[in-house]
């Protein structure tokens, strides 16, 4: 089973923001998506989930196994933590997403899938740590039962340990047969868990680099922009990288 995005463009009255982006994703696979700020990564995530902002017009094709993707085929875990309703306990929110997709609510199961204890269902968002909130957002996306998950900046604002836990959860989701797109500025983390990384710049596709291309200082990367992005990552974090001192 594959999710294919072909020649996807999104325009606003003021002009196009995404132009001719294509990518594909198999079940069980993680594909990374990165690029400079304002490249259109979050807009691509919203387009995949069918939740574009008012005034946006989409062209191009999103298909699952060659058929146009229906509503709810792709679930989105948004970037903003305040996407969790501040006035509802986490368990109730997970239930809402399940019911929207006509599924039985199973907050404990969804929480267990993202490594959170069942007791987290009773907590309100302001009672969660940043890492727990990120995983709770992932749980809301999982509750929809979608086979394809887009996680928008799931590690932003987290320390290395909490970010690592979220990435492990994403790897587990892929291992359980879901296709996962991870949007992140953390190219090192993406190279670690994704099979391929799609690079965007100014709303256009730059290249799709296999994870292996980031080894040995990124010399195998095709595009100069991708190499620049890779070089801009903290040296100590890069595999094979060395500290300046």
């Amino acid at each position, binding site marked *: 089973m594959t999710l294919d995005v072909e020649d996807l463009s999104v325009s606003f009255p003021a002009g196009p923001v995404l132009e001719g982006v294509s990518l594909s994703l198999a079940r069980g696979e993680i594909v990374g998506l990165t690029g400079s700020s304002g490249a259109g990564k979050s807009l691509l995530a*919203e387009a995949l*989930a*069918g*939740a574009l902002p008012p005034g946006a017009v989409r062209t191009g094709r999103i298909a699952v196994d060659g058929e146009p993707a229906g*509503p*709810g085929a792709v*679930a*989105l875990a*948004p970037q*903003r933590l*305040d*996407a*969790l*309703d*501040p*006035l*509802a306990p986490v368990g109730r929110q997970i239930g*809402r*997403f399940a019911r*929207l*997709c006509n599924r039985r609510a199973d907050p404990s199961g969804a929480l267990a899938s993202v490594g959170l204890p069942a007791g987290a269902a009773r907590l*309100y968002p*302001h009672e969660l740590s940043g890492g727990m909130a990120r995983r709770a*957002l992932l749980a*809301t996306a999982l509750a*929809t039962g979608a086979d394809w998950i887009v996680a928008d900046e799931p590690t932003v604002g987290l320390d290395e340990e909490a970010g690592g836990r979220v990435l492990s959860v994403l790897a587990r989701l892929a291992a359980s047969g879901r296709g996962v797109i991870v949007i992140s500025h953390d190219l090192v983390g993406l190279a670690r868990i994704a099979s391929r990384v799609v690079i965007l710049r100014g709303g256009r596709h730059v290249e799709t680099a296999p994870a292996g291309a980031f080894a040995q200082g990124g010399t195998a990367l095709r595009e100069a922009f991708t190499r620049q992005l890779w070089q801009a990552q903290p040296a100590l974090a890069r595999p094979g990288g060395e500290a300046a001192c």
Partner: protein
Amino acid sequence: MNAWLPALVAGRLLRLAWLLPLAATGLFVLISMAPIDPVQAYVGGRTSQIGPEQREAIAAAWGLDRPAPERFASWLGRLVQGDLGRSITFNAPVLQVIAARLPASLALVGSAFALSFVLGTLLGLVAGATRGRWPDRVIRTIAVVLAASPGFWIAILLVALFAVGLGWLPACCAAPPGRLDSEVALADRWRHMVLPVVTLSVVGLAPLVLHTRQSLIAFLDGPAARHLAAHGARPLHLAFGPGLRHAAGVALTLHLAGAGELFGGSVLAEAVFAWPGLGQATVRAATGADAPLLMGIGLATLLFVFAGNLLADIAARLADPRLRRAA
């Protein structure tokens, strides 16, 4: 889990402990400065029959011949013992006048409170969920027209239309005049309540509709609603589902905090509809310079507003758990 509740109530009661004497002093000063002479108000048209000695005797009987601070100290002393004094206009203990008239006022204010809350929240939710479309435009127009209409004018319109013109509803009193309390059927009581309750509810409706609409729109435009909408939730579902707590919580808090305005509005509604409640008694006490009754009603109103504000604080914390930490 609800540890915030006793702390909140204790804090507010402490505030009431200094608010009550302060309010009583303020009330007494205001009433003492009123340009109405209670003896003259009592004597009324019989001025020629009552001489200066009799006037002095009346003033002495009411304690008006003593200096104001002394009168206040003696009133305060009796208040501590639970005695609010004796009403001049009703010729009965103040406590008894208030106890007899409070149920009628509470029935009026309570019914108006419930009706305007249900109607205002419902209309606000529909307006917010259909933003920019015709239901929203119709509801907003009605709310703005109501906000700009004085309560007494609405009352007169309602009386002219439903009581005088169509003859469907009575324009006066809590029961048909001339009948004993035991002879009045429940349906009759309900019919007499309709116009005063509707008048009083309409006065507080507009702000409720507009606040509920705005709170819902703030939620619908926020990331939490967008996350739900991305997975298929429609505006009406969001409004009456997750959005309800966002919009109705704020509405209930505002509505409870505005209980004082509702009580103030009831003075007007009771005067127009000759409703035998505290509002009507307030008007009579004010025109008759009935200081003990005015003081009693003033303190009862303070307690009513205090209870409204306390309930508003509790409602806000029940609706939004983030506020509980600050309690």
